[in-house]
């Protein structure tokens, strides 16, 4: 139906940070609220004047709130927007500006200046630097600001500033014991920036005086040299030093390990050495998706088959399921999840604890090794991840007093319960809810072959509702045909079309029912590729979009696009068409350097396009997903 919120505005927050320059000036409010830097959300206002500025636990390391009088010194800088957008480095602009600063400084009085100036200048440099680093995209204006302003300042008080800065650093050293890590780090950053600015200024002054345009090069030199890596290294060192902070360590543990990035060469090498199956990576991958794994399917299959007897740690049931994933015999996240859990059930049945080991630990490790095998066959879906989290939790919570037999029996019944309650029963509840939204005369559209939706349609038909179904399908899997076959077999009136015709068919549709691989906590629906397109068209036609998804597939992650986490399928299946030799134009050129094939498996549908999510907790709007994730997460784990 309609977006739940007004369509998102496209104003880039980074650009908005620049906006303070054009704010109407307000001299009567010298305090931090209208200061550019304090517009960073995480910077707490510093309480002591001239104290080393503190920065929060933030992404941007240089969020330094101004000491009070320094900001009043600088307030003229903000007053006149014209001064901030001069023609790059026109001499008049820079001189008028520096005059302004000087006059304000005079106005402040000598006594005040002597104490507050260093802080002010120091702060100001930091401000420039942060502006430079946080607004890299804003281009010329920012650069000109960075170049011009320090010149103005240093022309007047150049030497003093350096001296003051030394003073500042020595004082900060004595303060070191009192300051927190974040503050120290921010200080360090600011000093580095100051040094860089001074250096840039040295080389730059004559050019500016002669009225030359500010070059982008100098802007670069002003920017903080330290790369992200260095920063994080320094941070890590600091953290190590501060060893008496267990809570932070705990917090770190809770943060999930970042996903393996497959464009990181060294890590891929390492992973390859560990891998059970040797896999050749596809060569021509689309630039944006280099971080996702993609293998050449053919080699993978033969490798796996030949390795069967060498891969002794993998239980046959798991092996079988893995191969089924690989060949695409099991697809659909519910089916995959059930198959995996049942394989693990078999594996647990045949498991016996080696001597001198405990069941809880050894079994977890064993399951881990099975998992890495399965992942090599096909990356895990989010629902499988949740199921595994449940299983591992159950293993970890097994009472030590249980004998091995009992423990195995408990685990197997737990798995059974998970399958029954979280998947099968949940589907029944979903069907019960969804059927209420189908009325006589409706035309329902579905995309692909979502299992929950199929149950809904069949149940509605059993209840005798009169409706028509439009099955929309897409290459290469053509899963919709299977659904179509079953629906027609039951005597339901169907229309079959490909996703290309979606905008044509949509005007006669009254409800869109979609399945989902996962629902993320910002309401984004992560589902088979093409779903977003269907949902968007439905939204444009004001047709309500209903997503049927079991609550065990909900995930607390937030994802804004379908790039950063996705799965790549076999590129061959989109370049080749079976049985049509006459149109296989790409046959010869698949290995060409100029051709990159992209077969995405999933995409992310923004919550704006979704009217309702039907789950085992009832029908909820997409904005309520985090509530369910938060309130029932524990229940998922414990059942």
């Amino acid at each position, binding site marked *: *139906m*309609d*977006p*739940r*919120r*007004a369509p998102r505005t496209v104003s880039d927050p980074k650009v908005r940070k620049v906006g303070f320059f054009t704010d109407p000036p307000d001299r009567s409010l010298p305090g931090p609220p209208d200061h550019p830097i304090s517009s960073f959300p995480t910077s707490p206002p510093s309480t002591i004047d001239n104290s080393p500025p503190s920065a929060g636990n933030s992404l941007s390391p240089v969020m330094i709130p101004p000491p009070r009088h320094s900001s009043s010194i600088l307030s003229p800088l903000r007053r006149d927007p014209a001064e901030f957008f001069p023609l790059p480095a026109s001499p008049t602009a820079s001189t008028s500006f520096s005059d302004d600063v000087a006059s304000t400084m005079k106005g402040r009085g000598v006594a005040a200046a002597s104490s507050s100036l260093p802080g002010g200048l120091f702060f100001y440099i930091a401000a420039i630097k942060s502006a430079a680093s946080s607004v890299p995209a804003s281009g010329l204006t920012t650069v000109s600001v960075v170049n011009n302003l320090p010149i103005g300042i240093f022309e007047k008080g150049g030497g003093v500033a350096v001296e003051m800065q030394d003073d500042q650093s020595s004082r900060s050293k004595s303060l070191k014991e009192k300051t927190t890590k974040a503050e120290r780090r921010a200080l360090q950053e600011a000093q580095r920036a100051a040094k860089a600015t001074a250096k840039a200024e040295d080389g730059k002054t004559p050019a500016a005086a002669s009225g030359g345009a500010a070059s982008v090069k100098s802007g670069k030199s002003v920017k903080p040299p330290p790369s992200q890596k260095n920063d994080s290294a320094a941070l890590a060192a600091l953290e190590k030093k501060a060893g008496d902070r267990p809570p932070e360590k705990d917090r770190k543990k809770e943060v999930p390990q970042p996903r393996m990035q497959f464009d990181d060469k060294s890590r891929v090498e390492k992973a390859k050495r560990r891998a059970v199956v040797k896999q050749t990576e596809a060569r021509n991958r689309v630039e944006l998706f280099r971080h996702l794994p993609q293998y050449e399917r053919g080699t993978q299959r033969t490798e796996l088959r030949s390795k069967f007897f060498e891969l002794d740690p993998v239980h046959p049931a798991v092996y079988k399921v893995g191969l089924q994933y690989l060949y695409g015999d099991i697809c659909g996240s519910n089916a995959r999840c059930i198959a995996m859990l049942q394989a693990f059930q078999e594996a647990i049945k045949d498991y016996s604890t080696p001597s001198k080991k405990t069941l809880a630990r050894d079994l977890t490790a064993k399951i881990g090794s099975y998992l890495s095998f399965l992942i090599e066959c096909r990356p895990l879906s989010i629902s499988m991840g949740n199921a595994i989290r449940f299983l591992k939790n159950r293993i970890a919570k097994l009472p030590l007093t249980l004998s091995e037999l009992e423990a195995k029996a408990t685990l197997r019944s737990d798995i059974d319960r998970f399958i029954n309650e979280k998947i099968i029963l949940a589907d029944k509840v979903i069907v019960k809810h969804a059927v209420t*939204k189908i*009325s006589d005369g409706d035309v329902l559209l579905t995309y692909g072959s979502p299992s929950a939706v199929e149950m809904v349609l069949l149940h509605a038909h059993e209840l005798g509702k009169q409706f028509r179904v439009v099955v929309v399908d897409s290459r290469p899997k053509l899963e919709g045909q299977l659904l179509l076959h079953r629906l027609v077999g039951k005597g339901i009136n169907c229309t079959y079309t490909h996703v290309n015709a979606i905008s044509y068919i949509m005007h006669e549709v009254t*409800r869109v029912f979609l399945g989902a691989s996962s629902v993320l906590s910002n309401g984004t629906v992560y589902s088979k590729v093409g779903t977003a397109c269907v949902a968007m068209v439905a939204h444009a036609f004001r047709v*309500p979009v*209903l997503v049927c998804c079991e609550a065990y597939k909900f995930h607390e992650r937030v994802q804004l696009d379908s790039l950063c986490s996705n799965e790549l399928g076999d590129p061959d299946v989109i370049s080749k068409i079976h049985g049509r030799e006459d149109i296989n134009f790409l046959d010869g050129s698949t290995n060409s350097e100029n051709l990159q094939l992209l077969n995405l498996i999933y995409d992310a549908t923004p919550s704006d396009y979704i*009217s*309702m999510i039907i789950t085992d*907790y*009832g*029908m*909820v*709007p997409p*904005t*309520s997903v985090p*509530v*369910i994730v938060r*309130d029932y997460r524990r229940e998922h784990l414990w059942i």
Partner: protein
Amino acid sequence: MWWRSPSFILDKQQSDTVPHQRNPPDTLPLPLPSQPPFSMADTLQNPSPENNISAYYQTRAAHHAVVTGDWLAQAQAAIGRDPDDSTDTTVATVAGKPFSVIDEFNSWRKQPELAEAVAAIRALAAVIRNCQATTMMELEIELKKASDSLKSGDTTSISLTAGCDLFMRYVTRTSALEYEDFDSAKSRLIERAEKFGEISCKARRIIAMLSQDFIFDGCTILVHGFSRVVFEVLKTAAQSKKLFRVFCTEGRPDRSGLRLSNELAKLDVPVKLLIDSAVAYTMDEVDMVFVGADGVVESGGIINMMGTFQIALVAHSMNKPVYVAAESYKFARLYPLDQKDMVPALCPIDFGVPIPSKVEVETSARDYTPPQYLTLLFTDLGVLTPSVVSDELIQLYL
């Protein structure tokens, strides 16, 4: 000036055999209740389904609509009892005990100041009090039966259904009950029930207090129809010496806006009366829109008297805030996807002139306003954005 036709109240009395029939809106102020379906009826009748006339909207009309006093007196004299009782002729048979929940409910419902849900809660509390049950289970079953019969009495009233459901939750969901003997448990239940009734009564005051921050001096407020909560809000604002003016829509078909303008004029608030179609024309002068709600649904949208949706649309397109004042017992576990996805609640409409039978008349009494057109909801749980409604509902019901 023509008078509101009393037919929709009276026809119900004429029982099920006589097809629903609307009187010609003649200028006679007194249409006879026993008027037979004479020849004119064939041409004047609206093709509205007879038994779908919403009891909820009948009550509303009886309480808020502009009906001249003398007419009401005469009509009542003619029937011999309150128009509201019409429902229990069919439902009272369900509760065939000396104590009838329906009677109790109706006696509460007659008070115009009492919301329907609160009346239901009071009636259910009376059920507990009069209950002969000796075990907890029996009591619960009896309570369930009572609330079901209440709900089936009027399926179109969202707040009645929601109020009953909430009350059941509130009363039975208490762990402390498990370890006590029956009598003390029962008295505790009664205590809870009364407390719940009180909370519901206080809700309107809480909402009025919460919304005061949003009414500023010199603002212009557009209201639609008559809502007791909105009236309370405006009254409180007027009493706290705020300077504002109010635009009242007429609120067809029951013209409840006229009543609100009447009441506001009594409080010396500057009021302007608009016909319903003048909303877009005046919207540029308006600073905020205040509406009540018959029900707040899970998406965060509201179901309210017909015309709310179009006002919200106009306000949204002109970037004016739309505020909803609704007590939390109106939160319902419904999720309409579009306007037709609701239990139909019909009310007869009088057009003042004979309508040929071939002309179809839209008689739906309410519409659904999706959440994206609402700015904030003032409830006794606090000032909420529409998306929080679902969170609250999940907490209340799951």
